[in-house]
């Protein structure tokens, strides 16, 4: 019990920014076309992932075929999940066809092998106090 309390306190301190915050680099591979932008969001909870709260960070970068690197500074240590979509036509959404199949690129941290939106747990990873780099593949 004592240790759980200590952990909670520590987590609270990190969140409040008392300690050094990490930079997260997310390498996005397999960008199929240089058209449009890649839109990435970083979430810190399943609720945020499911749209009930804001993402903790968002970024848009011009697409270039192959690899695009995102950098997020100042993230407190914790559990995060990243989603990215390739907005080829600039309409700010992931286009899908009449039957609901996505027709633009998308991806999640951990590259879960699912043909649907991944869950927060499937995409979640731990970020410590140090800088970290993760890779994911656009599908």
């Amino acid at each position, binding site marked *: 019990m004592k240790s759980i309390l200590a952990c909670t306190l520590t987590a609270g301190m990190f969140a409040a920014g008392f300690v050094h915050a990490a930079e997260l680099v997310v390498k996005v591979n397999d960008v199929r076309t240089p058209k449009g932008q890649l839109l990435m969001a970083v979430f810190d909870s399943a609720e945020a992932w499911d749209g009930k709260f804001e993402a903790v960070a968002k970024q848009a970068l011009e697409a270039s075929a192959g690899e695009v690197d995102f950098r997020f500074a100042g993230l407190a240590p914790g559990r995060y999940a990243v989603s990215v979509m390739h907005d080829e036509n600039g309409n700010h959404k992931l286009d899908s066809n009449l039957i609901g199949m996505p*027709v633009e690129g998308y991806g999640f941290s951990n590259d879960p092998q699912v043909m649907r939106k991944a869950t927060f747990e499937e995409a979640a990873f731990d970020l410590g106090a140090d800088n970290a780099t993760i890779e994911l593949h656009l599908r």
Partner: protein
Amino acid sequence: MNRRRFLLNALAGASALALAPSLLRARSLPSIAEAFASGLEANPWMAGWKSVAAESFGPGPATVEGRIPAELAGTLYRNGPALYERAGQRYEHWFDGDGMLHAWRLDQSGVSHQARMVATAKYRREQRAGRFVVPAAGTAIEGAEAIRNNDDMNTANTSVLCLGDRVFALWEAGSAIELSPEDLATLGPVTWRDELAAAPFSAHPLRDRDGSIWNFGSLDMLGGKGLLIWHLDSDGSLKEVATLTDGQPGYLHSFAMSERHLVFVLTPYRMREGKAFFERLRFAADLPCRVAVVAKDALAAPRWFDVDFGMVYHFADAFEQGREIVVRASRHGNPVAARSPFAAAMRGEVAAEEDPVELVELRIDLAGGSVRWDETGIRGTEFPTVDARATRPRQSRIYAPVRQGRALAPYPNAIASIDVHRGRMNVHRYGDEIMAEEHVFVAKPGSHRAGQGWLLGTLFDPVRGRSGLAVLDAEHLDAGPLASAWLPFMFPLGFHGAFRWDA
């Protein structure tokens, strides 16, 4: 139990397992690729399921025996799965192989052949990777990468559609892939309308009398419900698209068309645990098939019927007789085996039992609301084709490869013209060692009577190591081929083709 005891037990368990004889045996079992290689050595006919040796063939001449009819000038495009192995992994399901498109060009100067792998997104991705990395329809791929949608799995391996000047390689669950009719270079997937990108456009479109094209795409296979109905103009523009939904999951590979109706027979299935679609699928022989009859001028108002379970890949023709629709089809008798045709050959094994196929008539009584299967007693008729000009059963002949007499392979060795109405059959038997594939009907220019034309059928000769093409007079099959054209090499058996006249 204390932690130390548990750990010891666990380790003991692990070592016992490691030494279990069954596991030792399992480790020494050959891979499917190795099993196929040794099966092929003992059974040369299994070369029909051997992974293709080259990315392309030709163009090059074939050696012609006999004479090509003077009026016959055009190209038979053929498609089929061809690439079954990469990096030691072999697909287990016939339908998984990447598609190769073949062009057999015929005229008075002779016959030439050319073939190229369809450069789908899947094929290009796996060429780069040097191994299978995309999930397959019938084989679990270890370490498969995530995919965007169904088109990332598209092998474009099933059939061909010729529409005006355009040629498309078709698959069951994704976009039509357009190729250059001249050099077979892949142009890419076709989007008939923006919001229909990647929507399934199945492999058996049917041409109506006005030249327009009807087709469907199964949504069940993609985790949805029901199917899409497509109607394209003869110029390739989309006229109409509609959805047809039903509560019960149903599999269908093709459909039938009569003068005023489209007929869809949905075979019930259940899904088990597993990775690949055909690995998980079990046809539910305890449930009835659902039959949708859709008037061509009222796509939104289908009539639904139940009929006893039956599993059909291919329909032949359909006729309206008063208030009855009669549909001819090749029905598979073994729903377990039908899930994966020639699965044994894919593993290099000789099947212990076959999947009997029978030509049947599906009789739909639109007035009384009942549907039944009628058996014709004619067996072994997969890959049926017809002359679509026939308007009555008495005019119709169904052309199907059949097996007659001794055969080296558990595969057709003959071509039959079947008059179901009169219960007659006219056959040409190619020989013990020849494997006969689909024969496409080509109407003679200027002819009007149904049946006046030629059959163009591909052949596989595993004994002499050659692939070929036969041209027969459709009304005189028993006279044998008017011409045969043979290549000095062979490539795997294919599925379906379409003929395009020279301009």
